């Protein structure tokens, strides 16, 4: 999505409850893969659906890949009647998910998410371990490479978090007194 910053700003301004998953979540954690669209899991409460519809309306969402002229209205009624939407907007493609395989709904995923500061907005992003879990649950062969990269990322983060062990005394350069004795 080209307008990721504008999207996050619009969601933050409207107070939309959402969690970023998918490729953008992977990028936020440190993945090197480039991703085209944004996947978000949104809360299905009436209030949040209202906020979501208002926040996205200026970007004229439309069903992605559908021929023009369909009787698609971006409205509270549409979102309430549906669950998952693959949309194209003036700022890029976005997948709005009311529920995700292996992760459930917004309320289920919150506990497995972390708050990251993205473009000045505290943004809930699914944690790396759960991102891997979701990719596994999707069960798509195309995700094998993605899972491998995310697991490698997990290993690199664990290495960074490991406190540097103090070198063994035998590995340390000799002090002046030790050199003197030698």
């Amino acid at each position, binding site marked *: 999505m080209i307008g990721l910053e504008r999207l996050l700003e619009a969601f933050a301004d409207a107070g939309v409850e959402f969690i970023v998953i998918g490729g953008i979540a992977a990028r936020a954690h*440190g*993945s090197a893969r480039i991703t085209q669209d944004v996947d978000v899991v949104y809360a299905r409460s009436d209030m949040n659906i209202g906020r979501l519809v208002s926040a996205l309306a200026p970007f004229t969402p439309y069903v992605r890949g559908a021929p023009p002229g369909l009787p698609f209205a971006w409205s509270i009624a549409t979102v309430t009647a549906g669950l998952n939407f693959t949309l194209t907007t003036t700022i890029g493609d976005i997948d709005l998910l009311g529920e995700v395989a292996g992760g459930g709904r917004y309320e289920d995923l919150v506990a497995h998410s972390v*708050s990251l500061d993205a473009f000045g907005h505290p943004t809930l992003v699914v944690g790396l371990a759960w991102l891997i879990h979701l990719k596994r649950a999707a069960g798509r062969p195309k995700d094998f490479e993605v899972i*491998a990269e995310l*697991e490698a990322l997990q290993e690199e983060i664990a290495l960074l978090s490991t*406190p540097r062990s103090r070198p063994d005394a035998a590995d340390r350069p000799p002090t002046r007194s030790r050199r003197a004795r030698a």
Partner: protein
Amino acid sequence: MRELATVASVVREARKRAGLSQRALAERARTAQSVIGRIEAGLSSPSIETLARVLDAAGFELKVELSPKARPDPVIEAYKHDVDRTLLRANLGKSVDERLRVNVEMLLFGNELRRAMRIAEQAE
């Protein structure tokens, strides 16, 4: 060591969500700020009781569960050999904003390339 890193990130996340500084959390948990700092830095491994007390002070409940150890998937392990870890390490040195901005820049670059190719095809 991965458990230590997880404990560190859990405590940091709980504190951030509660909107507390290390000092404020320490006061609520009746401990010293240095204790919280060392846990978050992954330099100390608190007991379950201490961890529960710290998380409770941030408004969270500690739940411990047993789950079978995940066995490495040979297919994923095979793919892992091809992962360029230098890119991952470089990304880990960047801020979240920088990581996301590179994604946008690469998409724009891709769009520009496609536009240039269309023009070239029309000119032929």
